[in-house]
Every structure is written in structure tokens, then in C-alpha cells.
């Protein structure tokens, strides 16, 4: 499963002492985190909103706003990404690494048929005759489980449901068979039944492509379905990491214990008050 050219001991993604600051006040939101991702591995990144998960993902993609400053090191397949400009990063995005976003309703350009948006990703990174691109797009749309892919390819986003759009976004992320796919809460905006189907699809497609995955979620249950290993992020720092089983059964950090308890509501005796994270982890005033 190692397609990154490494020798198996080199991680596909190696993040070291990553610090992210925003604005003129240089407010630090990620405080020197380090983690790595092996080729083909799936790593969950858990934490509540504002904990720095998405910012970390965007830093890897090089998609942070210009007022962000990133220090430390992000190596993708041995190549340092921190300090690279837009022009150097663009050829890597969509080819070597790609991203599935949270909000399928707004992730696609409303003025362009989705087939053309998928074809663009293909043509940006591969030299193909236009006709061949169309065929490949329709194939991929079929592979991500869209019925009648020919028709979907000609549809504008507003004519598709949230689940269908998210499948299109997944197709865009996977069509160039990247080494790394970052999924940022890809199922949070979908309703529960669609959520399960899209997760299954991601599971299968990541396997088919052989890509590594950094899977961001606030939902421990979702992460445990897809990932082997998990990082727990809190207020811009990684407070716990380990295998999913380990974190689930023997969480060490009080915050993680809270997360596990809230994810296991079935364990609560009927009539008892439902647990909250605050029962386990009294947070300091952050303001």
C-alpha cells in the first residue's frame, strides 16, 4: 500500500511542532503539535469545535487564510510543505493530497455542472483528451455510488441532494488517486442514514485507492468505524493518542474520558442524568 516512494519506515505525513498563529496579534491556536501518518493508515483527529482540528488540516493543505502564520514542519512523502507558496502547493493539492469538506451543500460551484467540476480536477493534474476525461468522470461518479452518473454529471449542484453532492465531493477528492485524503467532518452535515452510507463509501474507496486518511470528527463513534488510530485535540494541543480500542477502553486524559462517556450513552442506566464532558474535565476559562 506504499505508493509514496518512501521505504516503509518514512511516514507519509510527518507533522512536527506545528504552530499556527492568526492575525496581527499573533494569537496562537495550535500549540506545537506533532503526529505522523503511515502510508495507507487512517488516523482519526477528534476534538470539539475550536480545538484546532480544521486549522491543522487546512495547514497541511496550505489553505489557511493569508493572515495565518505557520511554523514547525509538515512533511508529505518526505517533502517539506511549510514555507511553500501557493504556486508550489497547488500541483500537490488534488493530486498527492486532497480534502473532503464538511458542508456538501456549499462545497460545489453553483454555476457549473458537477461533471465539469470533477473533470477539472482530472484535467488539472493529468493530460487527457476531453472525451476521455468525460468517460472517466462518469465512471468515478458511478464508483462513488451515484445512480445514473451520466445524468448527474450534467446536473448543477442545486439539482442534487446533500448526500449526492457529498458523493461528488468524494469523487473529486479521489479521482487522482491521492496518497493522502483529509476528511473534515465529511458526514456531520448529512442526516443519519445518509451518514452511514457515505462512511461506508469512504471506507471502501479509501481502500480501493490505497490512500492514507486524516479523518477529522467530533464524534468518537464515527472515527472508531473508520480509523485504527486516533488523536484527541483540546485547545490547540494533542492531549491523548493511541489505537481506537485503547482510547475507547482506557482513556487517560479526563477530557477523553468525558468524550468516551458521552459517546456511550447506551451505558447510562435509565433515569440517570446523561453525562457531559464537563463532568470529567472542568475547563479553565478561556477568555
Amino acid at each position, binding site marked *: 500500500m506504499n505508493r509514496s516512494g518512501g521505504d516503509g519506515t518514512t511516514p507519509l505525513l510527518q507533522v512536527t511542532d506545528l504552530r499556527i498563529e492568526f492575525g496581527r496579534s499573533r494569537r496562537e491556536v495550535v500549540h506545537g503539535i506533532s503526529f505522523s501518518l503511515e502510508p495507507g493508515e487512517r488516523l482519526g483527529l477528534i476534538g470539539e469545535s475550536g480545538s484546532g482540528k480544521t486549522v491543522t488540516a487546512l495547514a497541511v*493543505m496550505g*489553505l489557511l487564510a*493569508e*493572515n495565518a502564520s505557520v511554523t514547525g514542519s509538515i512533511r508529505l512523502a518526505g517533502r517539506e510543505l511549510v514555507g511553500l507558496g*501557493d*504556486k508550489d502547493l*497547488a*500541483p*500537490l*493539492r*488534488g*493530486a498527492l493530497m*486532497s*480534502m473532503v*469538506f464538511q*458542508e456538501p451543500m*456549499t*462545497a*460545489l*460551484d*453553483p*454555476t*457549473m455542472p458537477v461533471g465539469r467540476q470533477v473533470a*477539472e*480536477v482530472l484535467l*488539472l*493534474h493529468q493530460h487527457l483528451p476531453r472525451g476521455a476525461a468525460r468517460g472517466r468522470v462518469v465512471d468515478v461518479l458511478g464508483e462513488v455510488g451515484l445512480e445514473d452518473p451520466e*445524468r*448527474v454529471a*450534467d*446536473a*448543477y449542484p*442545486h*439539482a*442534487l441532494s446533500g448526500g449526492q453532492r457529498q458523493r461528488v*465531493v468524494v469523487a*473529486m*477528492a479521489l479521482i487522482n488517486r491521492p496518497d493522502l485524503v483529509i476528511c473534515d467532518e465529511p458526514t456531520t452535515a448529512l442526516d443519519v442514514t445518509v451518514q452511514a452510507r457515505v462512511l461506508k463509501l469512504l471506507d471502501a474507496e479509501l481502500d480501493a485507492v490505497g490512500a492514507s486518511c486524516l479523518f477529522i470528527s467530533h464524534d468518537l463513534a464515527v472515527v472508531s468505524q473508520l480509523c485504527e488510530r486516533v488523536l484527541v485535540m483540546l485547545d490547540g494541543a494533542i492531549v491523548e493518542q493511541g489505537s481506537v480500542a485503547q482510547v475507547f477502553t482506557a482513556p487517560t486524559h479526563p477530557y477523553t474520558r468525558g468524550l468516551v462517556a458521552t459517546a456511550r450513552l447506551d451505558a447510562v442506566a435509565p433515569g440517570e442524568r446523561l453525562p457531559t464532558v464537563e463532568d470529567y474535565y472542568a475547563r479553565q476559562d478561556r477568555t
Partner: protein
Amino acid sequence: MNLGRTVAVRLLVFAASLLVASAAIFLVINALPGDIATAILGFGADPASVAQLRLRLGLDRPLVVRYLSWVGGMIHGDLGRSYLTNEPVSALVAPRVAVTAWLVVISMLLSSLVALPLGMLAAVKRRTWQGAVASAASQVGLSIPAFYAGILLVVVFAVGLHWLPANGYTDLVVAGTWRPAQFLQHLVLPVASLVIVQASVLARYVRSAFVEVLNEDYFRTARAVGWTRWRALWRHGVRNAAISVVTVIGLQLATLLVGAIVVEQVFRIPGLGTALLSAVSNRDLIVVQGIVMVLVFAVLVINLLTDLSYLLIDPRLRGGRAR
């Protein structure tokens, strides 16, 4: 609702607006206190000749009949005859429409050419000094009234430097010969005085339209699949921003018509504006009525085209599910 029906509805609304506007213009002008015949002949005129003039001008007929005959005439391009010179109003107006149209269209094109890149730059570089400069420049331009800009331009470039004529106008084609140089020479200053303001206003709207696009999820998606910032903006931003920019351009064309009236005065350009003002001061009400109708017609056509262009730009308005 399919595309054909949408277009048909827009056209119907256009026709209805024209009708309502014509009735309103006719009523306002003809319900003004004061008799037109008396106004032409003066207050000392004897009642018999006033009555005779009323008869000749058709002012003795009921209001409804006069309205209908005016509208009926307009359908054939006949706007009636001047009360003063008995010249057909259409013959008086037509060449002036061309003059004002040149002024407005050239100004709008130039404004767009300046404002689109400037606004885009101000949006993309909004956190840097380049963006601040672009924003400040448009703020300054915005706060100068067109007539004042015109006077300043005349003082500097015509009176001071003698580079350009201070006023006047030459047709593009005079007696069968093309005169592009003189034509443009006379247009530079009036167009510039309109463009300074219009481009500044437009640039601000373009900037905010693109700032919005830059914050959109699909823009982030475009960059995530491998477009650089500028190319993503070009591929996926322009069309989306165009939806709001086109609205502003439509509104600006209408305000440019008004701006042109003022600027024509400053530069003594024989356009619709000058014709309108002289007709007003001569109490030649049927000419006033005709010119106002032409202006309203132009504004309604602009609105119609704006509406139709939305359909071209935004597939969501075209209606219908995926085929």
C-alpha cells in the same frame, strides 16, 4: 418553470412597465397647472388665438384620447411634433440619443475595465497595502461629484494644458467622412468625469462581491483540488461574483443616464440631457414628454437585459431539475 416561460414573463413585465410609465409621464406633464397654449403665446394673448392654438395642437381633445394618440404614435416611432417649431420630436431626439448613448456606453465599458481588475485586486489583497491603496483610491473617486470632476478636468487639461477641447462635440461620421480623432478628443473629458465616479462605485461592489466569493466553500474546494488562488478566482469566482456585479452595472447604467445629463451641460454636448433642459425652459412639453419617455424606455431595456443576463449566469434561476 422553464426558461421560455421565465423569459416570456420578463417580457410581459417589461411591456407592462412601459405602459404604466408612459401613462405616468403623460399624466404628470399634462396635469401640470397652466395651459400650454397660454404658455406659448404669453399671458397677454387674446383668448381667440389661444383657443385657435389649442385646436391646432389638439389640446381641446379629452385627456384619454390625447394619451392614446400619443401612445399609438410612439408605436410607429412618432413622438408628436414640437409645439414651438412644429418639427417632429423623433427627428429632434434621434441624433441626440446617439450622442448620449456613446457617452453612456463608452463610460460604462471603461468603468468596468477599470473597476473589475481593481475590485478583484482589492478583494484578493484586502489584507495587504495593495488592497488598502485600491480601496482608498475608489473611496476618493466615489466622493467627487461628476460635474465637479468635469470642471476640474477642464481646468487642468483644456484651460491649463490645452491638450483637449474644453467642450463641444463632433459626430463620428460627418458628411460621410470618418472623424474618429475629433470624436474621441471631444469625448475624453466628459467620459473621464463620468468614469471617475462610476468606476469607483463599481470597484467597491466588485470588491465586496469577490470578498464574498473568497469566503465561499466552493472557492476553498477549487483551491483544494489544485487551482492557485488567482486561477480558482477566475474559474469559479468570476461567474458567481458576476451575479451581483451585473445588478450593479444595470443600476449604474441608469444613473449614468442621469449623470450624462449633467455632464452634457458642463461640456455643452448636444445630447438628450441638453435637449431635455432646453425643452423644459421653452415649455415645449411634448418634447419633454418624448425625451423622458426615451430615457424611461432606455432604463427599462437596461433592467430587462439585466434580468435576462441573470438567467445566463445563474443556472439556479433557469429552473428545471437536471435533464
